[in-house]
């Protein structure tokens, strides 16, 4: 059954897409598909801040599904479902 996946933007990404979050309606999809859908919905090309040319994760990119980094799951093949929350952070640092 389809549901809403919340995609939240933080840091520099938020400035770029000019919205804190969008919702994507889907039953289940891969993260990469979700990102493409979110990019289409915002009308902003933010994927280049997260992925390299071969569509791999850039070093320092953080994509969390319900708080868990997809690097600890199946990376961009990680599947998300309606009701999930996805947090997107481009590379950042501090101390």
């Amino acid at each position, binding site marked *: 059954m389809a549901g809403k996946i919340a995609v939240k933007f933080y840091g*520099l990404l*938020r400035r770029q897409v000019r919205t804190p979050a969008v919702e994507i309606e889907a039953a289940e999809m891969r993260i990469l598909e979700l990102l493409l859908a979110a990019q289409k919905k915002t009308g902003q090309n933010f994927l280049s801040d997260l992925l390299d040319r071969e569509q791999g994760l850039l070093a320092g990119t953080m994509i969390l599904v319900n*708080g868990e980094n997809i*690097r600890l799951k199946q990376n961009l093949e990680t599947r998300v479902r309606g009701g999930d929350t996805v947090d997107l952070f481009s590379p*950042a640092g*501090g*101390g």
Partner: protein
Amino acid sequence: MNGWMGKIAKIDLGSLKQETISISAETRRRFLGGRGLGVKLYSDLCPAQTDPFAPENALIFMTGPLTGTVMTSGRTQVVSRSPLTGTICDSSSGGSFGAVLKSAGLDGLVIQGRADHPVYLYVHDGEVEVRDATSLWGLNTQQAQKAVQEKTSAKTSVACIGPAGENRIPFAAIMNDKDRAAGRGGMGAVMGAKNLKAVAASGGQAVAIADSEGYKAMSSRIDRVVDKNPVTGKSLQVLGTSVLVNIINAHGMFPTENFRRGVFNDAEGTSGEKIAETLLQRQSACYKCPIGCGRTTRTKNKAGEGPEYETVWAFGAQLGVSDLTAITEANYACNELGLDTITMGSTIGCAMELCEAGAWNGGLRWGDAGKLLALVQDTACRRGMGAELALGSKRLAEKFGRPELAMQVKGMEIPAYDPRGAQGMALSYATSNRGGCHMRAYMIMPEILGHPVFLDRFATAGKAEIVALFQDISALVDSTVLCRFLQFAMGISTFSEMLRVVTGLDFSDDELMKIGRRIYTLERLFNIRAGFGRKDDTLPPRFFREEFQTGSSRHRVVKLEEMLDDYYSVRGWDQDGVPLPATLAELDL
């Protein structure tokens, strides 16, 4: 001599005797400068039982071989025995004071004794002048810096204490170049105990560079590397360090209400994104820094510097406070009074939990933003409740019979990363030579931020080796002396190249790592002599027993024992945490 100025001055404020400490080429090569050479000098001068407030205690301002040369090289390391922890301590500050001290002709300044009246030191042309500071005593750090500049020159760089240092608050900071702080460990209180209000420096001596053509080429290349890096060239510039608020909160490890929860519901309202939208006037940068992570801000009442990530947390989530103006103005007050924001905020959080638990009838409640400013001011002056808060969280919680409510290691308050969310960070806190500090081994880099590689934050296997490695690199960078943020953009070989171009000395990567290890081990040896050992390499019991029920770090506890034996083994220490003779021999200690 290239890189170093070749002179470290030593002054006794009691006898006014001055001398020059000569450092052999071999010792420079083994400890470089900054933290490393400062700890070496301190260990040679002061027994481990030295009372931090006794006249014989040494307070050491140190620069490094790269100070005043490459980017981010204005920093200073201040070394002494901490009145907060009793450990060896070095505290690092940005700004330009280090570069100016070197331009005044000194690599470092060792201060012992106690003046019989308030004084300040004026360093120029390689000389140290003792001047009366009676009229400066009682001024806040902003007023004092301005007053010293009026008495010397507008170009003078001033490192000074405020009322907190004068009153020997054990977490008093030394402030320089307006709002830059040697914040942690109470170096400002050591300064106050010496009746020393300020150290000022001005000069025009240039640092000799061994390979000036190589220096130019290297500088251009490093400029490009730092500019192209998404962290140093973008994120830190635009959003400052507080970009971490949402990141750490999303990982369920943003310590909330004295580390009882890992998710702060109002995090968004105190985030770097929110600061940029509301309070930020402009970014600010230290000497020769292209990053500019500093935040010059304005509330409806006042203007100033900050808050940085740690301070946003210390006066925010740690206290259940979401009022960004209150957080920022508490930060301004700490800058003016000369207080470490992390210990100040964490101690108030400890007090709030003591009050809630009925252990202290202090009337503090979570979220009480309206009391923050007065609490900070009263602490600096030891008034009312502030007299209790001035103890720091460990002594405060012990006094009220609930020592477990102080979120500290070796007496220093743990900063803004809950160790249940990152096992390597937990080991780093526990084994830190200066107590609960994130800067000894910033394991958040690999465990959360994915630099230089991404590590599973909940895994314990292999973490001991990486924590030791990060501790050694940190000791090395602190001894060069450059900003740690460069590590987001460059590896050890770049530091080796910078040292070669500036000093003319070739250091292999292995030799540099050995220098870091030597420094870390020397600090450990001091702490062992001061009575610290395995029993102190631990965390508050909360982190072993209490699990979060919400957030992505829920149902986790710290598994320290799984890592500690490995850590000692990696370090070449015995199972009590004492460096083995073979380790000391290998490190020439």
